[in-house]
């Protein structure tokens, strides 16, 4: 392979394969650059930045939507982009639509609450779109470098967004805390990445999986050799886990979460708890499945991986041969107990399952004592992240046995994310509107809300009950699906997770219901002026919160989309 043919294949890969599927991200980039440039131009200050950002987001969303209707996802295969740095499959497609729909709703919210006023507008919207761009990279990452890149691209704007309201001590403190914590986690993660890439000779996830399979860890362990290699791999995995856990705000790397949520404006809380969490979960799926599962037929992606191997990898020569050698082998033994990747999966599943149980339980228990509604919701976010991680654990545990069931588990997760969007965006939107109206975010100041803003109180009640996971509200269905997947995964560990998940539903009841009680049962306080919300605020709350009820009664459509998005994943 000489240089010209290499460049040729690189060009055709970039121009013909990758760029057309990269339209969403390009649209976001274009919008960001345009928004920054407009300010420099004469008269550019008078262009409302909201309009620019909104246009850009809608174009990006339009590009992310499948041209031929959602059903086209059923035939969408796995396609590696940019020489294997990114991957485009139904998961990418679904989550991109998810992220951009959220961003569109979020921009409207930010405009309505006045978070992005005229002077700050450009900065704010640039940061939001930039973070979204990073999240889009995260959900399609197929290479340890893009994973790191995506995490950083999403995190750095988030640090600034947390402190976007200038001159508030708590806000600045939260931003600083977040930045320092994030930097630490990123450093550890980078170290982990270098360990993994160093041992496996590649940072391209499918190649790493082949290398892992070639290492034959079960055989080595049985023979009593290779302990140090396994140790280094485990250490690298754990260190990468630190970075992921930080983004997921999973215990024990959750400490930033309550402080940041309390310090940051409520709108940013919605952004962090929905978009950022979704991207982090996607990343967890990418890592878990990328390293823990070898597709039975990797041939289609071979052509795309070769240039990547030539450019960014250390040891290229033997990869194709090892791939071919393992292709037949894995096809026959995949799913059996001596699958060479089963230790990787077990390691991943045990780690994720334990972290998930602890996060879920801790988040729910810690939420009890909170007096600030944003802080309470921060802990609720931690608990829900734990719940969602359970689905990932179940999916990875199932993939070795039955691909179909693993896809169902992932579909449960996607359903969870979609419903969670409405619940958390709704909750934080209500908090933001009420903050503007009554300048308080303490739970006790919501007393008597049912009198002054009945609609808002009812919607908030609905959202909170949905967060508990009670039918007939939407929050119930994803929980049910996750429990189903856990049951399907079986085994003592998964049953423990199942019981923990079930019990957590009961634990979480009390603190969500306490807010409901304050709003609906407690008499209004004398000192607090009863808040009034404008027409647009109420309309926005309705638009975001009503799906919680509608999807609760008719979850069919969302569930179908989630199913479609996972049907051909593997």
């Amino acid at each position, binding site marked *: 392979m000489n240089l010209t043919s290499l460049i040729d294949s690189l060009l055709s890969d970039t121009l013909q394969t990758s760029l057309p599927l990269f339209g969403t991200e390009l649209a976001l980039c274009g919008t960001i650059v345009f928004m920054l440039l407009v300010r420099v131009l004469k008269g550019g200050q008078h262009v409302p930045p909201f309009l620019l950002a909104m246009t850009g987001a809608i174009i990006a969303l339009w590009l992310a939507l499948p041209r031929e209707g959602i059903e086209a996802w059923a035939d969408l295969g796995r396609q590696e982009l940019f020489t294997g740095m990114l991957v485009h499959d139904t998961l990418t497609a679904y989550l991109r639509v998810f992220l951009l729909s959220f961003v569109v709703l979020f921009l409207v919210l930010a405009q309505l609450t006045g978070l992005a006023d005229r002077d700050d507008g450009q900065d704010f919207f640039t940061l939001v779109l930039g973070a979204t761009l990073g999240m889009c990279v995260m959900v399609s990452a197929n290479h340890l470098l893009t994973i790191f890149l995506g995490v950083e691209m999403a995190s750095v704007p988030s640090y600034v967004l947390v402190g976007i309201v200038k001159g508030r001590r708590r806000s600045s403190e939260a931003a600083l805390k977040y930045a320092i914590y994030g930097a630490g986690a990123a450093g550890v993660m980078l170290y982990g990445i270098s360990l993994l890439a160093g041992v496996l000779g590649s940072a391209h996830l499918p190649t790493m999986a082949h290398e892992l399979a070639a290492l034959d860890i079960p055989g080595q362990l049985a023979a009593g050799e290779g302990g140090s290699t396994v140790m280094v791999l485990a250490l690298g995995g754990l260190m990468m886990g630190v970075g992921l856990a930080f983004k997921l705000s999973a215990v024990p790397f959750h400490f930033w979460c309550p402080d940041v949520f309390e310090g940051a404006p409520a709108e940013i809380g919605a952004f962090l708890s929905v978009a950022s969490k979704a991207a982090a979960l996607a990343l967890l799926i990418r890592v878990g499945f990328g390293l823990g599962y070898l597709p039975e037929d990797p041939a289609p992606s071979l052509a795309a991986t070769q240039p990547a191997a030539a450019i960014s990898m250390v040891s290229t020569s033997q990869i194709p041969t090892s791939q071919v050698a393992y292709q037949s082998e894995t096809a026959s033994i995949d799913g059996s107990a001596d699958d060479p990747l089963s230790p990787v999966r077990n390691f991943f599943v045990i780690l994720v399952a334990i972290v998930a149980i602890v996060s879920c339980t801790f988040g729910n228990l810690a939420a009890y004592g909170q007096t600030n509604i944003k802080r309470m919701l921060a802990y609720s976010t931690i608990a829900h992240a734990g719940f969602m991680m359970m689905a990932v654990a179940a999916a990875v545990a199932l993939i070795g046995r039955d691909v179909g069931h693993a896809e169902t588990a992932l579909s449960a997760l996607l359903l969870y994310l979609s419903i969670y969007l409405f619940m958390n965006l709704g909750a934080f939107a209500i908090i933001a509107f009420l903050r503007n109206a009554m300048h308080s975010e303490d739970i006790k100041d919501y007393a008597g809300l049912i009198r002054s803003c009945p609609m808002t109180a009812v919607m908030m009640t609905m959202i909170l009950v949905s967060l508990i996971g009670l039918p*007939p509200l939407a929050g*119930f269905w994803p929980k049910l699906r996750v429990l189903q997947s856990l*049951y*399907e995964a079986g085994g003592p560990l998964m049953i423990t997770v199942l019981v923990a998940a*079930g019990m957590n539903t009961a634990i979480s009841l009390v603190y969500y219901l306490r807010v409901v009680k304050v709003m609906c*049962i407690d008499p209004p306080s004398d000192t607090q002026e009863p808040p009034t919300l404008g027409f647009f605020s109420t309309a926005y709350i309705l638009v975001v919160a009503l799906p919680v009820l509608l999807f609760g009664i008719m*979850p069919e459509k969302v*569930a179908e989309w989630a199913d479609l998005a996972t049907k051909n994943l593997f």
Partner: protein
Amino acid sequence: MNLSEPVVYLSLLVFLPAVAALVLALLPRLTDDAFKFISLAVTIVVFILSLGFFREGAGVDFEVGVAEMQNMFNTDWIPTFGIQYFMALDGISFPLVVLTTFLSVLAMGASWPIKKHVRGYCILFLLLETGMLGVFMSLDFFLFYVFWEVMLLPMYFLIGVWGGPRREYAAIKFFLYTLVGSVLMLIAILMLYFNSDLTRLDAQQLVDAGIVHVTEGASPEEARNVWLEGDSLLAERYQEALGGDDPSQRRPLHTFNILALQQMGQHTDLFDAEVLGGRSIQWWAFVLLFIGFAIKVPSVPLHTWLPDAHVEAPTPISMILAGVLLKMGGYGIIRICYPICPQAGYELAYVVCTIGVVSMVYGAFAALAQTDFKRMVAYSSVSHMGYVVLGLGVWSAMADTGYNAEYWKMGVNGAMYQMIGHGISSAGMFFMVGVVYDRVHHRNLNEFGGLFAKMPLYSALAVGLFFAGLGLPGLCGFIGEVFVVLSVWKYSYLLAIISASVVVLTAGYILWAIQRVYLGAEYKGPHEEALVPITWRELAIATPLMFLAIVFGVYPNCVLQYMQPSVDRQVDHLAAWTQRYDERETATKPLSEEDGQVAAVKRP
């Protein structure tokens, strides 16, 4: 879309209150009385709809003497999850449905003293009615679960906003207890779902499960083939699960259909696999479900939410709680626990019976010790619902009795009758307590007395209803209690003697309460001047209850004719199952020394 289709009629019955609640929420501000009248009208319409089943020959009616499910319909709700909108009525659910609609009218009538946030109250009350009716009618396990949970939130608010001084504590306790129970139920549902397999049922069983509909003159096999060739989504999945000619492609087809699960529990070994601690799937499912339902019944030791909830709830909500909500626990046990998990029920029959008897005794003693009038009535509910658990659990169709199911039938019929009778008498007792509480604003048993002189009509009705609760012959409480106690005799002498002697305790606390409240020379408490005679509205609520208490006591057949065929059918099926099970067990067990005669014959 006409009313003679079950799907329209039953849906209307269930969802009319919810729709009315939505309309109430959107109406402009009206007077409080207007909201109450609208809600009352809605509950009356729903009651009339439920009475419509009595019209013989109408498009949708309830035929007397038919044991099978009637007015069944079955459509997809969430096909992705395999959940159906599947409802029907049989002799077990029908009386409870009518009881629910009837008590809803009376409870709405009893809601006139509610003055706070009337619109919210009416909305929640109507939502509650939808939930209750849905639970009794749904035959898809998931639909059942959803309705079960739908009730929680309205109930929480009804207790928490309109209740007494400790209302918030009582409301959250009620919510938490029920939620823990329903989480356990959810886990059991998942266990059963993932081990179920529709393809294992034969044609007749599919017909019994309401999946295949037999047209006149066709055999079940033919009907199944017609169904398979039809375009229903389930039939398609069924074909898929069969996997065509290739046996390796065969996959189980899971289902939430309660009737199908019953067939699987009784005719297949799908739920017999061991899972945990050497126990089978159905053993664990039974235990989890039973705990969930026992919380609702409530049985000792899971009853502690009930006195708090009842005492703090406003009078109409106490009536609903005692009259309908407790019955859901009993209904769940008879509809779900036993038919789906017969083996576990058989093994644990003595445990269930003991729980029933302990509840009876404990509830009676606790009622004796109360000084709060309403708390005493609440504990009497614990005691009376113990009869229900005991009657359902008396698995007397054993080898010793030659698989004679007569006594067991008597027990289950008695338990069902006790549910209806207790629905009438406990709602009446709570209403009577509420009437006097509205006047004097206290419930201290030691500060009453002499009410007979001041409110003669009220006192006569109250004493009558309390006697119905006591189980006086000729009133509704007697039939159920005597059936249950008689049926236990064949099962266990010890439990029979204890349960029979509880009647003495019951008489003790009821008579003592009557003596302290209604008899005596003078009223000893505060607000004596408020003791005015019973109003017309109150009379209109108390009289139908008293009337039914007498009718059900004198002519029990008016209820039994509806419920008995279905109950007998289910018990017969379970008795037949017991025989098959025992034969299978003895056939597989190697002969040993203890096997008495058989072994003795073989010995030379």
